[in-house]
């Protein structure tokens, strides 16, 4: 009601202002009642309007968060939609992307010839840089037993290019995949990687469950 009355007053004031000139022209000596709002009226009205907008926004936010499960939303990458285009490495507003390779060890085959670790044409299965697929050496290989090797991701080195993910998906079980790491992500309102993602793989997920992990299915 208050905002409605405020709008009415402002409208009346403007009309009075525009209609005053003829009166000033024809009745020079008679005092004309000044209905235009004072600066205080305008400030008071503006404050009321801002409060109204803020309350409406708060209500909308509370309603939205209730629908989302009672928490705020964060950006995440759906690993089943990701095509490892490279945009995650280049479009993040951070100097080094918040998107990192992660590893589901339950899905991993612990292969000697890991196609996420080695170049497809690798001549030797050793840690020589020329044999490694990762351009930054962020995937670490460690022998466990016989032909079984464990691969871990050094997140400080990982730039989120997804090259290892491509290799793992091509031949292996797909246990390597990309995720937005929320200890790094600034959670921009408009994620610049999401805007550039050609596979539409980014979406908002509840902050209390911020990861979209592979490995839920029994075949994995």
């Amino acid at each position: 009601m208050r905002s409605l009355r405020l709008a009415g007053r402002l409208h009346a004031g403007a009309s009075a202002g525009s209609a005053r000139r003829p009166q000033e022209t024809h009745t020079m000596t008679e005092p004309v009642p000044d209905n235009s709002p004072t600066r205080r009226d305008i400030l008071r009205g503006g404050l009321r309007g801002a409060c109204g907008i803020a309350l409406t926004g708060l209500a909308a936010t509370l309603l939205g968060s209730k629908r989302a499960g009672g928490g705020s939303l964060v950006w995440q990458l759906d690993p089943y939609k990701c095509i490892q285009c490279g945009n995650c490495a280049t479009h993040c507003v951070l100097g080094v992307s918040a998107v990192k390779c992660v590893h589901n060890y339950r899905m991993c085959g612990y292969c000697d010839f890991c196609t996420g670790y080695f170049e497809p044409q690798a001549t030797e299965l050793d840690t020589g840089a020329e044999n490694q697929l990762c351009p930054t050496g962020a995937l670490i290989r460690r022998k466990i037993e016989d032909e079984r090797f464990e691969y871990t991701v050094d997140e400080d080195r990982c730039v989120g290019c997804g090259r290892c993910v491509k290799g793992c998906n091509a031949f292996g079980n797909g246990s390597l995949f990309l995720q937005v790491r929320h200890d790094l992500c600034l959670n921009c309102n408009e994620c610049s990687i999401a805007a550039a993602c050609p596979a539409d793989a980014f979406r908002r997920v509840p902050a209390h469950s911020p990861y979209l992990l592979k490995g839920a299915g029994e075949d994995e």
Partner: protein
Amino acid sequence: MFHESGLITKELLVAVAMLCAAAGVVVVALSVDFSPPEKSTLGEDYEYDLSDASEIDPALLICVERPQRAIPTGLMVSRAVASGPDGQVCVAGDRSVRIFSAKGEPAGRLEFDDQPRCLAVGAGGVLYVGFRDHVRVMDLAGAERARWANAGEKAMLTSIALLGDEIFVADAGGRAVLRYSAEGELRGKIGLKDKTRGVEGFVVPSPYFDVVAGADGLVRVVNPGRHRVEIYTPDGEPRGWWGGRRSLRIADFCGCCNPSALAITPDGEYVTAEKGLFRVKIYDGDGEMLGVVAGPGSFLPEVVAGAEAQLGAAPTALDLTVTRDGEILILDPRAAEVRVFERVRERADASSS
């Protein structure tokens, strides 16, 4: 002047301007590629390129496909194919087994409460269907004759082979081939590590672990992590192996773990299928490559934008069988078809390989 004469009115000018704008939008729309990029936007150094290995020399091809004889499986997820002694073709997938006649006509359908993962067809229409941890013996009419004991908590049954009156079941989870009697009694395990017998053990990184039986009474088992085919007697004595070379070269096996499927011809030759880079090839009894049945170009690409989202974790690897007539049947899960290939040459030119 024209304006004065009424030839060019304001409305005409607006219409021309709108047409030009519309034409511009169409040109821009046609010139912009909205499809997802196939290559990394980071450049060549970040590309994972298998294009060289995807090309197959046509001189290596020794089979031709008979597309008119392809059998649509009607399954969302196809897992295994087998051919019977009477020529019937059976396909396991979803929660059913589909049965087709030798001509590819639908001949039956068995429904289950679980996902069948492998199967074999014996004499008299006896169907052995492998689930994650057990085998059910069925007849082609759908009656369950027997359900064998659970193979263990870690079991992941992936292949079944029949040899005489015995049944051999590959267990990827247990990394062994289980030897059963016709009644389902477990008689032994093949391939467990045993230095005294010279058995190094199976390396099975993913649930693709195949076993076949030859007419010579020996059992062939894929050791996918070692990229080779191993030969055993029914009681588990090793008789040798072939393969073992891991590379993208056509005569070798590629990736982390291949071949993913194996079949044997009536003449004792091997047919292999690889996952990742789909290649189907024929080897002689000593493991020398004779030629190629089908190369990567014959199949839908493994990595398709958005396909993973649609298929999720559904298996996309090929499965194989060879009919009594020597035809090679390839189960192509992405096409949801059993594709028929016929041998037209004994071997490729030696110079080609």
